[in-house]
Structure formats: structure tokens, C-alpha cells
């Protein structure tokens, strides 16, 4: 059967290059990779845990703040200042801090979820 020279030379080259596969010379390669992977997985679990705790304390703090604002009656004072005079600055400061914190927490949560998709 006639085999064109081109095919013959391609086959020869393929035959030669079948010897070009190298063996991983480091016998502990698999264990090293698995050890690094397990470290990464552990780190991810700790980040997840921290995020969940952050949300929990955020919820607790917000609830506590709201309750406090309801409980403090109009007649009471804090350091001699009537509560109703403190209300607006307190709400503005608290509200701003709350929004900034929520934004950061949401960003982190979305980033974590993206990594897990």
C-alpha cells in the first residue's frame, strides 16, 4: 500500500516524540498538592465562619440598638442632655455606620459565594 512520504515522516516524528513524556521526578508531589489543598479548604471554612458570626453580631447589635431607642423615654437624660436632643445625631451616625458595615459585609459575602460557584 502506498503511504505518502509526508505521512511516513509524520509517523516517524510521532514515534520519536512518544519518548518525550517526562516523569514527575518528585515522589512527594501528590502529597504536597493535597496538603496545600486541605490548607486552602480549612482557610475557606474559617472565612465562612467569620462571615456568619459577623452577620449574627450585626443582627444582634441592630436589634439591641432598636430596642434601646424604643425603651429610652422622652423624659430621660444622658450625661445631662435630654434624649430627644440626642436622637437625630445618634440616628444619623448609627445609620451611616450601619450602612457602611452592611455594604462591606454584603461585598464579602458575595465574593465568598462567587468563589464557591
Amino acid at each position, binding site marked *: 500500500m502506498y503511504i505518502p512520504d509526508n505521512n511516513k515522516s509524520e509517523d516517524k516524528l510521532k514515534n520519536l516524540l512518544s*519518548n*518525550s513524556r517526562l516523569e514527575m521526578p518528585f515522589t512527594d508531589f501528590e502529597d504536597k498538592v*493535597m496538603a496545600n489543598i486541605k490548607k486552602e479548604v480549612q482557610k475557606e471554612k474559617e472565612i465562612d465562619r467569620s462571615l456568619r458570626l459577623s452577620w449574627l453580631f450585626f443582627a444582634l447589635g441592630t436589634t439591641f440598638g432598636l430596642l434601646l431607642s424604643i425603651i429610652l423615654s422622652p423624659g430621660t437624660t444622658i450625661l445631662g442632655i435630654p434624649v430627644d436632643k440626642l436622637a437625630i445625631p445618634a440616628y444619623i451616625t448609627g445609620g451611616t455606620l450601619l450602612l457602611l458595615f452592611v455594604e462591606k459585609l454584603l461585598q464579602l459575602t458575595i465574593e465568598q459565594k462567587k468563589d464557591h460557584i
Partner: protein
Amino acid sequence: MDEVYIKRVIKGDIEAFRYIIREYQHMAFTVAMSVVKDEFIAEDIAQEAFIKAFENIKKFRFQSKFSTWLYRIVVNLSFKQLKKLKLREGDFISSGTESTETAPDGFDKMNETDRKYYINEALRLLSPNESLALRLFYLDENSLEEVGNITGWSASNVKVILHRARKNFYAALHKVLKNEMKTIL
């Protein structure tokens, strides 16, 4: 078989990833060596590639071969590392006007160990692109399209590199054996 283990890893079975490492470590190392020409650097690259593959395994959609996807990671990391090594074109062999595309006389009669040694020494003399192209096309038996997918080269670029690589490979093989003869004599 790959699909079974990949799905197990995605479901959270970390140990199932060992199968992937065992199956692909040698070729991943070979691909990295084609580019960086150093065993220790190639090992680091292969390690980093497997870790990246594990971290991103949920993004693998089974639309291509897993090897294509993995070797793409290895190639990207290898060329990134290559920039730091600052190897120059002149460091690699060029056949110039020589057009011999045959193995040296008596090469076929050598024992397998020696043949393997000289072939890999010859590949070491080739530029990263050329030795990579030869191994991906002839050793791993990827199609031109698959080589393009792994390397990011266009189809025409793959053909040009392979054409040059064939010539330079034979030139390198002749050179390696000539040097060996000089050493012996």
C-alpha cells in the same frame, strides 16, 4: 472516568482529587518543562496549576476535555514564569537553512533509555513555543484546534510553529548527538 472523579470533587470529596493528580501530574510537568526548561520551577508550576484547578473546578463545564482545561492553566502559569526568567531567542536552536528532517543514522538502533534521553535533550534546546507545540501535538495527540485552545494561539500560528519546530527538532537532535560523540571521543 475523569467526569466521575471531577463530580465527586465538586460535591466536596477532596480525596477524589488525588485521582486527577495521579492521572495528569506527569503530562502537566512535561508541559511546564517544555516552557521553563527547569525541573524545580516546572514542579512549582505544576503544583500551583493543580491547586488552581481544584479552586476553580466548579467552573469546569465538561464542554472540553479536562486535560485541555488543566494544561491551559499550566501553560498560562508557565509563560508567566518565563517572563521572569528572561530567556532570549538566541538561547534556543534554529535550523536556519538546514532542511534535514530525519533522525541521525543509527538512532533507531539505540536502546530506549538513550533515545528518550537524547530526544528530551533536543527538546530542551528548542524554544518554549516549539517544544510545547511538538509535545501537545505529537505526544499528547491533540488536534490543531485543541493545541490552539490550550496555548491561546490561532490555528495558523499553531501550524507555523509546528513547521518550524519539526525542522529545529531534527537540527537539535543532530547537535545533541554530535556533542555526545565529541565527548566520547
